[in-house]
């Protein structure tokens, strides 16, 4: 079970594609930094060619989302399987996976 961290928005198509190619259905994805901007476009999360299609669980770092004006309450309804977490929970998330791969 791999934890993937992703720090870029959807415009970084090559990076997102690499994650899509690598992510398995046992893996989790954590959006950090600019990665949280992907949450503003819930339509991408229902596409079969997006990494979210394979990922078992999706997380977003609360601090980065709040900093960028992304409203968690809105999103928890429009995207399935998304949880907002703190840095402390980021640590526990990493600890509960076999390894962490960073996509940047």
């Amino acid at each position, binding site marked *: 079970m791999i934890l993937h*961290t992703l*720090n870029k928005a959807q415009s970084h198509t090559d990076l997102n594609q690499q994650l899509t190619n690598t992510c398995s259905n046992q893996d989790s994805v954590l959006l*950090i*930094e*600019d990665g949280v901007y992907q949450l503003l476009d819930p339509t991408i999360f229902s596409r079969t060619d997006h990494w979210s299609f394979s990922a078992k669980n999706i997380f977003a770092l609360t*601090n980065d989302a709040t900093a960028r004006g992304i409203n968690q309450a809105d999103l928890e309804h429009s995207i399935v399987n998304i949880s907002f977490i*703190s*840095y*402390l929970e*980021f*640590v*526990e998330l*990493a*600890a509960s996976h076999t*390894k*962490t791969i*960073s996509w*940047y």
Partner: protein
Amino acid sequence: MVFSILVLGAPFNSQSAYSAFRFVKAALESEHTIYRVFFYQDGIHNSSAIATPPQDEFDLYQGWQNLQTQHSLDFVTCIAAAARRGLLNESEAKRHNKDNSNMAKEFDLSGLGQLVEATALSDQVITFGQ
């Protein structure tokens, strides 16, 4: 869990170094072990002794230095990556006949072997890149 952290980004140029800093702090709060923080590529700039952010901005350089002191952490900056980017400690400055050194004392200069060792001795290595 024993973590080592690889920092590849410079403060201000990207958020990656800040994210690494917050992760390290959180890991220590949760009583996990940080075996080593290794600064490579542009991450070496985190070890500057003289970088001076504006007074009203967060000083990540000071943040790292305080963290190292408080928790006796092992901060290693890659010697080759640092030298080519203009970061030298006293002995490297002397060795290369440069007038000044500019590395914070909280960081050790060493080779990539330290990153490889950290990889072998930690449960996980987490990279914060730009």
